[in-house]
């Protein structure tokens, strides 16, 4: 996995709550047996019109957010299906960071497995970021955020700066690009001993 330390990128606002993983990557694209190549299908039903051309109404298709790598979203982002194809599609499209007031649990975990950082900010802070992004875009330029993982900060060039919480283990895995299966296999002897002592689940 690629380490994640700091990142600066264009923010792409997606102003809707409860974006589910069926929207992030619709089911017809789950038949593939690879981990790569899903970016072209990201938000497929919103992003493309029936004739296959980009939908000019959809936020991510606006020229001002071209090349965005920070997705700004609303509450309960990534709800629904456990499909890891959702973070695969976001990462393959170019997103490194997703910011929202809340995330669905499975999606949140899946992000870390793919070198992508999900950041929870308060509803007020997310509102403020939407305002700042809109103001910048109204002036014709994209809105950029700087994300620093070692210090757990997110901020812009105009005075916005916040800290966020991230689980220390997840943080270390991201910073060092660690394979957590490899880490867990370092404890294989403990697992083997535990298994030998616990043939069936019993109340301890």
């Amino acid at each position, binding site marked *: 996995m690629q380490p994640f330390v700091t990142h600066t990128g264009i923010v792409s606002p997606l*102003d*809707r*709550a*409860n974006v*589910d993983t*069926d*929207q992030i990557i*619709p*089911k*017809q694209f*789950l*038949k*593939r*047996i*690879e*981990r790569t190549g899903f970016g072209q299908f990201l938000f497929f*039903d919103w992003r493309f019109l029936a004739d296959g051309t980009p939908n000019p109404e959809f936020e991510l298709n606006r020229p001002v957010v071209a090349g965005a790598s920070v997705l700004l979203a*609303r*509450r*309960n982002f990534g*709800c*629904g*299906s*456990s*499909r*890891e194809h959702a*973070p695969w599609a976001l990462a393959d499209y170019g997103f490194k960071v997703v910011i929202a007031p*809340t*995330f*669905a*649990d*499975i999606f949140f*975990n*899946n992000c870390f*497995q*793919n070198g992508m950082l999900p950041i929870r900010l308060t509803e007020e802070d997310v509102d403020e970021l939407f305002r700042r992004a809109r103001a910048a875009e109204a002036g014709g330029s994209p809105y950029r955020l700087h994300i620093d993982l070692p210090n757990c900060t997110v901020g812009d060039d105009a005075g916005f700066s916040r800290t966020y919480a991230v*689980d*220390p*283990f*997840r943080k*270390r895995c991201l910073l060092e690009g660690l394979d*957590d*299966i490899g*880490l*867990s*296999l370092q*404890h*294989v002897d*403990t*697992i083997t001993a*535990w*298994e030998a002592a*616990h043939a*069936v*689940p*019993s*109340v*301890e």
Partner: protein
Amino acid sequence: MSSTPRTLLDKIWDAHVVCTPSGELPILYIDRHLVHEVTSAQAFEGLRLAGRRLRRPDKTFATPDHNIPTTDRRLPIADPISKQQIDTLRTNCREFGVRLFDLGDADQGIVHVIGPELGITQPGMTIVCGDSHTATHGALGALAFGIGTSEVEHVLATQTLRQAKPKSLELRVEGGLHPGVTAKDLVLYLIGKLSTEGGTGHVIEYTGPCIRRLGMEERMTVCNMSIEAGARAGMIAPDQVTFDYLRGRDYAPRDFDRAVAEWERFPGDPEAVFDRVEIFQGGDVVPQVTWGTNPAQVVGIDAAVPDPSTFQDPNERDSGSRALDYMGLAGGTKIADIPLDRVFIGSCTNSRIEDLRAAANVVRGYRVATTVHAMVVPGSGRVKRQAEQEGLDRVFRDAGFEWREAGCSMCLGMNPDTLEPGQRCASTSNRNFEGRQGKGGRTHLVSPAMAAAAAVTGHFTDIRHWLYR
């Protein structure tokens, strides 16, 4: 070990933490790993690339369910990409020594139907699957939750997961359900009250007299939809209903009485404290119908589609009006006046024998409305055979329903069973997301009895006033 009173979740958790390395997440042991074709191929490939072995093939069970045709199984799978996904599952199971309930196996079916049905699911266990509806298995008093494909690979390689302990949420339901009101109505009602993220970060334990009175399959319906309230897992403490259900099943423990003696120790201690408690009255629940594009957008059959502009929360207002747009509905329309094009009875929520019996009882002696295309997709090969022994397939076919082979089918429409754009469907499944059953399709979630009644009348109909023949 501990004298502090503990919940069911606490007891299962404590019984499965292998160790917590300093500065790291706990390593949680996994008793059962259920595998299907859509979320496992990349995980097996990861094992192969890293030269790792499957640690416990004996605790891993696989079946194809999401992406399989429900029509004649003797015919080859038409879609070459779907066929490749099924073939890949076969190759992986053969190579790594996993028991596969393949197409054509008498016990094939939806993974969350066959786990309990075969007795693979047992109280006190930790159970995972690359599918968010894994919570279903919590109905038997297990801690069961959905995981992503990277985590599937982690379990394959280590038989463990890195997990922070979730918080506990007690949903206590007092009283009982009125006649005609089902477990599906109860869980839709609870999701409507909690919202789609009310359970995020929590494991729900359903408690109270109303829950205790539910049969085993009804409990599965309730736990199944925990994820629609944001909770990764839902559980119900094991009791005599659980033990009676499991006794004699293929994979149930051979020394069953000894197993029961252990399982009886898992229910939470009376003084155990939950992180959060919510209390509801079973008697408040009427048959439910979703009107929007998430399962919390739900009302009673006797109500009207709400007007989102009256909603307090700006997020809810925005998603509500977006949902009505997508659903082609106007606020104020009576639910009972909404006409249907399709009816789908199936999915891991409602495709078990009791669901099919309930639907068949409604349909018996009636015909499907000429404007409606209706289908029944049993949850497993066993459910299908049982239904056929009872003559339920005749009831459905005589009424004009299609009678299919077992699979996930139109719950997610990965296979050819999909809605056409604009088609409106009464569905016993679990998600009414935009495009879930087919691009542009409009899904209303209901109970099997309500779906059956809607198939007959062509619009939503209050099952409490149904004239059974």
